[in-house]
């Protein structure tokens, strides 16, 4: 009696596990297949895309789509621009927010909490609301169609989240660390740069990843502030490329893949860190 019951329970658990796994696999296919399909058609030519096996592997792998996208489609320029704008933005966000976050959370001054609240307010601001005023300012300063027209807003909008994440890390550092540094004769700068900064390396990585994703993928500012092709980033470049190569899906696919691959590679390498940085960005309470 007992053993039969146990056996039955084992059996239902087994069946339940199979159903759950089947469900999870179906969802996984739905999530990943469109991307695989994109990779496939980036290697096909028109005739195969339109009349061949739409769903499956390409007959011949047309790597020339990639070289065509890179040379004719200007993707190389867009790629360079994206790398440049994104990396300078990350660097500036890190420098500014690590110092500000430190001064707000660890130093004693009257307006520190007001400053924090003001900066955190920025997390709620939809970027749409600033588009036109920024456009006017950048136009008057003759900064439209320069890298700065993207870097400056990207840095400013990256700061709130960065200060928030770094601030919560600083708060976790024991006071004694700073006290002993000062006892040993460190000034405030030395304490910050050589004692504190190395301690918050995980937070710095988190902020860097977060800033990378938002700058690399940004479209609205990029499409508004830049219309010269030589300064366009990948997201905008992709839009104009689709217009130019409207009938050549293979080349468009290659361009889309080139836009996507860096992110995917970073994700696969830093999987855990990326997921944590996205969680850290959300749980601001």
């Amino acid at each position, binding site marked *: 009696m007992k053993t039969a019951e146990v056996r039955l329970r084992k059996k239902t658990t087994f069946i339940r596990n199979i159903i759950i796994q089947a469900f999870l696999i179906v*969802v996984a296919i739905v999530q990943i297949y*469109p991307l695989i399909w994109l990779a496939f058609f980036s290697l096909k030519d028109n005739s195969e895309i339109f009349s061949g096996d739409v769903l499956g592997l390409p007959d011949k792998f047309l790597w020339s789509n990639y070289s065509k996208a890179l040379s004719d489609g200007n993707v190389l320029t867009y790629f360079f621009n994206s790398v440049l704008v994104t990396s300078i933005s990350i660097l500036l966000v890190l420098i*500014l927010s690590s110092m*500000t976050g430190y001064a707000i959370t660890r130093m004693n001054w009257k307006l520190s909490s007001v400053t924090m609240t003001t900066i955190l307010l920025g997390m709620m601001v939809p970027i749409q609301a600033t*588009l036109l005023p920024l456009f006017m300012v950048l136009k008057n300063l003759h900064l439209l169609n320069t890298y700065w027209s993207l870097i400056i807003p990207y840095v400013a909008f990256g700061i709130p989240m960065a200060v928030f994440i770094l601030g919560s890390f600083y708060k976790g550092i024991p006071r004694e660390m700073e006290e002993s540094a000062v006892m040993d004769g460190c000034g405030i700068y030395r304490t910050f740069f050589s004692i504190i900064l190395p301690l918050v390396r995980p937070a710095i990585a988190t902020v860097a990843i977060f800033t990378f994703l938002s700058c690399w993928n940004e*479209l*609205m500012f990029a499409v508004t502030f830049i219309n010269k092709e030589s300064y366009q980033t990948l997201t905008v470049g992709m839009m104009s490329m689709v217009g130019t190569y409207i009938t050549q899906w293979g080349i468009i696919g290659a361009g889309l893949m080139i836009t996507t691959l860096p992110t995917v590679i970073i*994700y696969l390498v830093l999987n855990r860190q990326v*997921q944590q940085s996205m969680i850290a960005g959300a749980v601001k309470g």
Partner: protein
Amino acid sequence: MNSVFSNKKAIMIFVLPTLLLFCTIVLIPIVVSAYYSLLDWNGISKGTFIGLDNFTQMFQDPRALKSIYNSLLFAAASIFIQLPISLLLALILASSVKGEGFYRTVYFLPVLISTVVVAQLWSKIYNADYGLLNTMLENIGLSSLAQDWLGQKDTALAASFIPTLWQYMGYHMLLMYAGAKSISQDIFEAAKMDGASRMRTAFAITIPLMKPILKVCLVFSVIGAFKVFDLIYVLTGGGPLFSTEVPSTLMYTTIFGTYQYGYGSAISVFIILECLIVTVLINKFFKIE
């Protein structure tokens, strides 16, 4: 000691550049936007002050009303379709199934991809003649259902919601998963001892304890729906016949397409207010409960 940590000069050096940049680029423009929204202005000539006329115009403009209606539908679809699916997946993954890490990685992948790419990809999937969706329908003998998904008024809005669902499902799943995982295991063990079923445990223990993260997801998905731009801009541009128009695409075309700077700013102010009100309401709602 104190003198080191209240070094005024150091505080200035650490804070001032950030604060200046932040105020000039983020805060002041909002005030400026609010000011622009009170003008009749085409960007070239001098604007004239017209008070709240732009807002009155907005609530009488069928296109604007349609765009607000569409973004509300987007929000509703996010709340009632996307979040439940994400919650289900999060609960399953958090209950330590085989391949937990693998599934989490795969589900989350689309979150990281540029919306421009997502939109281009899905416009190919929806392509009426050679797209993935119609081909699949034909392969399983449902070719009668095949149609121009984005090109028709009736299907375009639903078709533009699916890519958002696809892209951000993993994000909410991850947040909820993190929330579920942070619940102490002791509670689950106690529930098991008391003989509670899995279902019961989920509804009576896990979900109530996940309330803080569920609130975050709710706020994010509603605000995300109000702000949606990239996807619609690339996928349909608001068409056909405004059937997928949302406030941000309308704002964009109003400002940079027809040069109605004042009216466009009014729409952008409306978007801020919309987001603000919803955040406050959701916070209130969760406090009452």
